[in-house]
C-alpha cells in the first residue's frame, strides 16, 4: 500500500478549458522584441559590475517593464509574450542566427514563427550591442580547432547550449510554495549578514547573495504588476462572474509568490510564476515541473480537509496550468528546430513513484494530472509517470487510458532501473528515490542538480564512416588515421578502429561541452534559478559556476541499432562467411549501394578525391573539380555498380538484426552501446561533475541522418538513423515483445542520462479494459527485464497519412516524437515520414 488514499473517478472537463486551448492555437506563434530591448538597455548600464549582479539587474529591468497580459478566461495568469505562444529573444546567448533567418523563420518547415517588421527592427537594433559578448562566441573561442572541425563535419552537435540557455533543471518549487520569495530573500539577507567582508570568498558570495535578493524582488514586483492589472480589469469588467475571478486573481498575485501559499489556488499561481519566470531569465528549455503531484499535495489536502476546495475546481486549475505550459515558447535556429521539432519546451511533469523512504506516494493529484493531460490533449507538459513494483495498478491503467487517446503521453519510467543508476552516479538513496525526469528522459534529483542533460547529439554512425575513410571527411582529416580497411584481417581490428574513432570524437565532444560550460559560467550565471537549487545559497555560487549539489554533463548518443546491425553485418559477412570483402563494402558504401547519390555525397566524394590528388602534387582547379564530379556521378550510375550494391544489400538483409530477440545479436548491441557509454563516464566537467551518457535522439535522428552516409547495415545515405535505443525502423519483425526483449538487453543502468524506447501501436491494441490490462502488462514485463523508459504512439498509419494530406483537419493531432509529444502537422515532412515508418506493432 502507498502512503495516500486516492480517488479514481473521472472528473469532467469544463468548457473554459476548450476555449483556452482554442484561443491559444488560433494563430502562428510570434517573436516579440520587448525582452531583447530591455536586456540590452540594462546591460549597457551595468558594464562595470560583476556578471552575477548584471544578470540580476537585467532580470529585474525586464520584469519591471515587459508588457503583461491576462488572457481571456484565465484563472492562472502570467505570460511571457503578448501573443499566445509567442516568444522573446535572448541575445546574450546568441543572436546572429536569428538575424540571418529573419526572412525565413515564418516559412520554414519546422516550427515557423511570425515576426513583424517592427520587431525585426528593434531586435536588430538591440543585437548590435551583443557582438563579442555572447556565451556562444566565448564558447567558440574556448574550443580547440580540431573540435570546431569535428562540429563543422557533423560528428556531433552541441548546438543546444551553444546557442541557448541551459534550462534542463527542476527547482525547489516546494520552497517557494512554502516561504515565498520574501522568505528566500530573507534567507539571502541573513547569509549576507553572516559573511565576513574579509573572507577570501566574500566578494563572490556577497555579490551572488545580492543578486539573489534583486531577483526575488523582481519576481515579487512582477506578480504585483499582475495584481494591479487584474484589479483594473475587474473594475472594467461588466460580467459579474469574470469580475469575481479577476478579483481573486488580483488577490492571489498580491500574495504569491511573495509569500507562502495558503491555498491550493495560491499554490497553483505561485507555481506558475516560478515556471514562467525561470524561462524568462534564460532561454533554456526542459525547465521541468517535476513531481507536481507531490509538492502541490499538501495544499490540496489541506483545502480538501477544510472543505474549501472541490475536486472539480482543483482539476480545472490544473487544466489551466496544463494549458499555460503550452503558452510558453521558444524560437530556435532552423537546424536546431529540426532537432527539437514541434515547438517543444520539454517541460517534463511526472506523477507517481516513491518518496525518499521508498514508499509509494501516488495520490489524488497523480490521477488528476493524468486527467489534465486527457482534458487538454496538448504536447505540454511532457507528461511522465513513474512505475515500480509498488505502483498501484489502477494508476497504470489510468495512464494507459491516456496513452490510448493517441496523444503520445505519458512516457513510462522504471524506478527499478533509474534509482540504482542514480545511486551509481553518487546520489544518496533518498535523493535517487525522489527523482523526476528532465526534458525527454533524463532523471535527476530536483533542486539539487545541474545535470546539463541534452548536452549534445552524438551520432554513433559518423565514426564508422571514418573507419572506412581513415578519418577523412570531405577531404579533411577529421578523425584518426586508422589502418586502411583493406588491410584488416580480423574483425577485432575493424572494431578497434571504430572504438578508436569513437574515443577521439568523444574527447572532442567533451572539449566542446566544457568550453560551452565555461562560457555559461562566465557570461550567464543565473541568480534567480540558483536561489532555488541547493547548495547555491550556502556556497554563494550560481548553478552555472558549480553551486549545485550534483553536477553532470549528459550528451546523448544515438544510432545504436544501426551500429549494432552494421558491425554485426561486417563481422558476419566479411569475417565469418567471407561473402564480401571490406574493400567491396567500402566501395558499395561510397556509392550508396548504387541506389543514387545525394548532392552532399557527390560533393563530399569530389572534395575527397580532389584532396588526395592535390596531395600527390596535382594542380586542381575549377575545371578539374567539375571533371571529378562528373566522373563520380557517372561511376555511381553504372549498372555493374548498382548490381553489386543490390547483391550486398540482399546479403545484409539475411543477417540477423537487433530488435528480434536474438540473444547473440542483442549482446553485441549491448557491447556496441558501451563504445559510447563507457569512455564517456571517465570525463569531468568544469563544475566538478562527471559525464554520463544518454541514449536518445530527441528528433535529431532525422536531420542528422540526412547528413550521414550509407551504413553497413544497409541503411541508405541521408535516411534517418534509428531513434533512441529502438531497433531500426522496420527491422524488428517479431512483434513488440521481441523488440522489447532485445532493447532490455542493453545496459540501461550505465546510460544514466536516460534511454528512449519507442513503440507504436494501432489503436485497436488498447481497446477495452482487457486491452489496457495487456498493455500495462507489456510495460511491466519490459521493466521487469530492466528497461528504463517506454513511450508509445497509438495512432493508425492511415490517420497519419491522412493528416499529411489534410493538415488543416488535424491541427490538434499530437504524436510522440522522441522524449516528447508534438503537434504532428507542425513537424517537418521528413520527421513525419519517420514517425509513420516506425514499425507498427500489429495484433493477431
Amino acid at each position, binding site marked *: 500500500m502507498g502512503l495516500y488514499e486516492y480517488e479514481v473517478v473521472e472528473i469532467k472537463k469544463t468548457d473554459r478549458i476548450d476555449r483556452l486551448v482554442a484561443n491559444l492555437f488560433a494563430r502562428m506563434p510570434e517573436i516579440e522584441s520587448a525582452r531583447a530591448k530591455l536586456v540590452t538597455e540594462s546591460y549597457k548600464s551595468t558594464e562595470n559590475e560583476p556578471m552575477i549582479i548584471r544578470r540580476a539587474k537585467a532580470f529585474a529591468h525586464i520584469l519591471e517593464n515587459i508588457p503583461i497580459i491576462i488572457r481571456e478566461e484565465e484563472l492562472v495568469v502570467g505570460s511571457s509574450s503578448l501573443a499566445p505562444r509567442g516568444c522573446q529573444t535572448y541575445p546574450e546567448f546568441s543572436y546572429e542566427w536569428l538575424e540571418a533567418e529573419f526572412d525565413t523563420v515564418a516559412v520554414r518547415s519546422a516550427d515557423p514563427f511570425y515576426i513583424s517588421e517592427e520587431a525585426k527592427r528593434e531586435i536588430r537594433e538591440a543585437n548590435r550591442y551583443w557582438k563579442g559578448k555572447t556565451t556562444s562566441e566565448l564558447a567558440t573561442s574556448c574550443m580547440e580547432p580540431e573540435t570546431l572541425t569535428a562540429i563543422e563535419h557533423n560528428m556531433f552537435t552541441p548546438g543546444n547550449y551553444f546557442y541557448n540557455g541551459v534550462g534542463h533543471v527542476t527547482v525547489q518549487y516546494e520552497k517557494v510554495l512554502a516561504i515565498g520569495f520574501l522568505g528566500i530573500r530573507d534567507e539571502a539577507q541573513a547569509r549576507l549578514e553572516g559573511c565576513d567582508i574579509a573572507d577570501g570568498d566574500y566578494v563572490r558570495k556577497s555579490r551572488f547573495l545580492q543578486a539573489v535578493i534583486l531577483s526575488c524582488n523582481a519576481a515579487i514586483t512582477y506578480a504585483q504588476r499582475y495584481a494591479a492589472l487584474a484589479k483594473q480589469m475587474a473594475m472594467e469588467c461588466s460580467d459579474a462572474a469574470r469580475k469575481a475571478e479577476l478579483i481573486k486573481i488580483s488577490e492571489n498575485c498580491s500574495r504569491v509568490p511573495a509569500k507562502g501559499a495558503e491555498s491550493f489556488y495560491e499554490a497553483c499561481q505561485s507555481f506558475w510564476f516560478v515556471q514562467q519566470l525561470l524561462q524568462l531569465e534564460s532561454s533554456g528549455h526542459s525547465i521541468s515541473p517535476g513531481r507536481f503531484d507531490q509538492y502541490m499535495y499538501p495544499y490540496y489536502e489541506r483545502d480538501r480537509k477544510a472543505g474549501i476546495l472541490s475536486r472539480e475546481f482543483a482539476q480545472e486549475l490544473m487544466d489551466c496550468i496544463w494549458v499555460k505550459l503550452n503558452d510558453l515558447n521558444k524560437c530556435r535556429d532552423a537546424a536546431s528546430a529540426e532537432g527539437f521539432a514541434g515547438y517543444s519546451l520539454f517541460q517534463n511533469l511526472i506523477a507517481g513513484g516513491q518518496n525518499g523512504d521508498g514508499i509509494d506516494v501516488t495520490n489524488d493529484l497523480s490521477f488528476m494530472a493524468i486527467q489534465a493531460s486527457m482534458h487538454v490533449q496538448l504536447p505540454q507538459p511532457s507528461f511522465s509517470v513513474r512505475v515500480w513494483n509498488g505502483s498501484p495498478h489502477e494508476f497504470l491503467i489510468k495512464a494507459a487510458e491516456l496513452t490510448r487517446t493517441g496523444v503520445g503521453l505519458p512516457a513510462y519510467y522504471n524506478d527499478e532501473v533509474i534509482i540504482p543508476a542514480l545511486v551509481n552516479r553518487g546520489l544518496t538513496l533518498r535523493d535517487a528515490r525522489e527523482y523526476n525526469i528532465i526534458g525527454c528522459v533524463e532523471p535527476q534529483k530536483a533542486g539539487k542538480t545541474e545535470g546539463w542533460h541534452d548536452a549534445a547529439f552524438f551520432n554513433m554512425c559518423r565514426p564508422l564512416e571514418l573507419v572506412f575513410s581513415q578519418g577523412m571527411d570531405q577531404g579533411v582529416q577529421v578523425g584518426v588515421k586508422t589502418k586502411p580497411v583493406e588491410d584488416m584481417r580480423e574483425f577485432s581490428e575493424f572494431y578497434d578502429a571504430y572504438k578508436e574513432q569513437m574515443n577521439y570524437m568523444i574527447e572532442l565532444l567533451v572539449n566542446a561541452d566544457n568550453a560551452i560550460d565555461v562560457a555559461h559560467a562566465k557570461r550567464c550565471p543565473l541568480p534567480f534559478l540558483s536561489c532555488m537549487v541547493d547548495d547555491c545559497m550556502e556556497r554563494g555560487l550560481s548553478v552555472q559556476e558549480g553551486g549545485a549539489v550534483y553536477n553532470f554533463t549528459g550528451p546523448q548518443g544515438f544510432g545504436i541499432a544501426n551500429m549494432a546491425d552494421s558491425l554485426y553485418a561486417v563481422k558476419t559477412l566479411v569475417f565469418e562467411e567471407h561473402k564480401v570483402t571490406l574493400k567491396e563494402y567500402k566501395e558499395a558504401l561510397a556509392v550508396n549501394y548504387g541506389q543514387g547519390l545525394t548532392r552532399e555525397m557527390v560533393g563530399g566524394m569530389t572534395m575527397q578525391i580532389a584532396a588526395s590528388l592535390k596531395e600527390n602534387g596535382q594542380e586542381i582547379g575549377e575545371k578539374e573539380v567539375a571533371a571529378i564530379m562528373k566522373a563520380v556521378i557517372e561511376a555511381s550510375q553504372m549498372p555493374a555498380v548498382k548490381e553489386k550494391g543490390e547483391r550486398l544489400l540482399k546479403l545484409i538483409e539475411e543477417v540477423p538484426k537487433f530488435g528480434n530477440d536474438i540473444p547473440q545479436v542483442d549482446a553485441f548491441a549491448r557491447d556496441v552501446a558501451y563504445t559510447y557509454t563507457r569512455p564517456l563516464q571517465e570525463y569531468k566537467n568544469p563544475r566538478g561533475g562527471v559525464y554520463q551518457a544518454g541514449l536518445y535522439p530527441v528528433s535529431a535522428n532525422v536531420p542528422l541522418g540526412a547528413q550521414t552516409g550509407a551504413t553497413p547495415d544497409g541503411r541508405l545515405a541521408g535516411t534517418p538513423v534509428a531513434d533512441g535505443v529502438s531497433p531500426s525502423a522496420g527491422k524488428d519483425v517479431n512483434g513488440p515483445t521481441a523488440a522489447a526483449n532485445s532493447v532490455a538487453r542493453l545496459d540501461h543502468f550505465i546510460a544514466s542520462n536516460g534511454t528512449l524506447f519507442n513503440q507504436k501501436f494501432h489503436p485497436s491494441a488498447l481497446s477495452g479494459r482487457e486491452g489496457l490490462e495487456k498493455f500495462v502488462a*507489456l510495460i511491466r514485463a519490459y521493466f521487469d527485464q530492466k528497461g528504463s523508459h517506454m513511450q508509445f504512439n497509438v495512432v493508425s498509419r492511415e490517420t497519419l497519412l491522412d493528416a499529411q494530406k489534410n493538415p488543416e483537419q488535424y491541427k490538434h493531432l499530437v504524436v510522440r516524437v522522441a522524449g516528447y509529444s508534438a503537434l504532428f502537422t507542425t513537424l517537418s515532412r521528413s520527421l513525419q515520414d519517420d514517425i509513420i515508418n516506425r514499425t507498427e506493432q500489429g495484433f493477431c
Partner: protein
Amino acid sequence: MEDYRQTKGRIFDIQKFSVHDGDGIRTIVFLKGCVLRCRWCCNPESQEYGIQTMRVDGKEKVIGRDVTVAEVMKAVEQDRPYYYRSGGGLTLSGGESLCQPEFARDLLRAAKECGIGAAMESMAYAKYEVIEGILPYLDHYLLDIKHMDSAKHKEYTGKENRLILENAQKIAHSGQTRLSIRVPVIPTFNDSVEEIRAIARFAKELPRVEKLHLLPYHRLGQDKYEGLGREYGMKEIIPPTEERMFQLKKAAEMESGLVCQIGG
C-alpha cells in the same frame, strides 16, 4: 532431457504477442494440417499437412517445418515475462492441433510443467480418446462451433458436426479444463439470428462454459489463396457490420445467459 520434449511435429508459424486468443499476452504456435476445409478459412496454408510453398509479397516462402517440442518451447520461453505479468501463455492453433495428437499433447505438457499457461484453439474433430489424453495438460479449451445444422456444416466445411458436438459435451463434462466457445460469424453461412441462437442454446446446455466469442469474418486470408494458387471462394462475401455483430451478440446473450464477446 525428457523424452516428450523430443517429440516432433510440424508447424507453420509461431506468433508472439497475441492478445486475442486466450488470457493475457500469448504465444501462438500454429500446427499444420486440418481435417476440415472451411470455405472462409483465413489460414489456407494450414490445411495440408504436407510442406508447401506460398508466394508472399512476390517471394516464394516455404510453409511448414518440422520441429521438436523443445525447439518450440525455446521460442515460447522468450516471452515468459509477459505471461507472468498478464496471465498469458501458450496457445496451440492450426490447422487442427488434434491432427498431431502426440505433438500437441507434449507441447501443452511442456508448457504446463514449466509453469506456462496452456490453451488450445480447436474444433475437437478427433476421437475423444485423443482429447482425453490432452486434457490433463490443458488450462483452457477454445472450442470452435460453427453450425448446429449438420448438413450445412458439411456443405461449408466438408464434415458433419456430430463428432464436434459430442466431444464438446464430453469436454465440458470432464471438468478438466476451462472452456470457451468460439463462433466464426460468416455471412451466408451462419450469420442469421436464428443460427447464432441455436449455437448459443447448445453452449448454454454445456456445463461451465466461461464465455461465448463471436468472431466476425474477415478477408485477411484472401491473398494467401492467391499465394497458394487457389481460388478464393468467398470473394463476394462482405464482412459483417459492427451493428450486425452487436445484434447477434445480444441475441446470443439473451439465449444463453453467457458472457458474450465480439472478437477473441
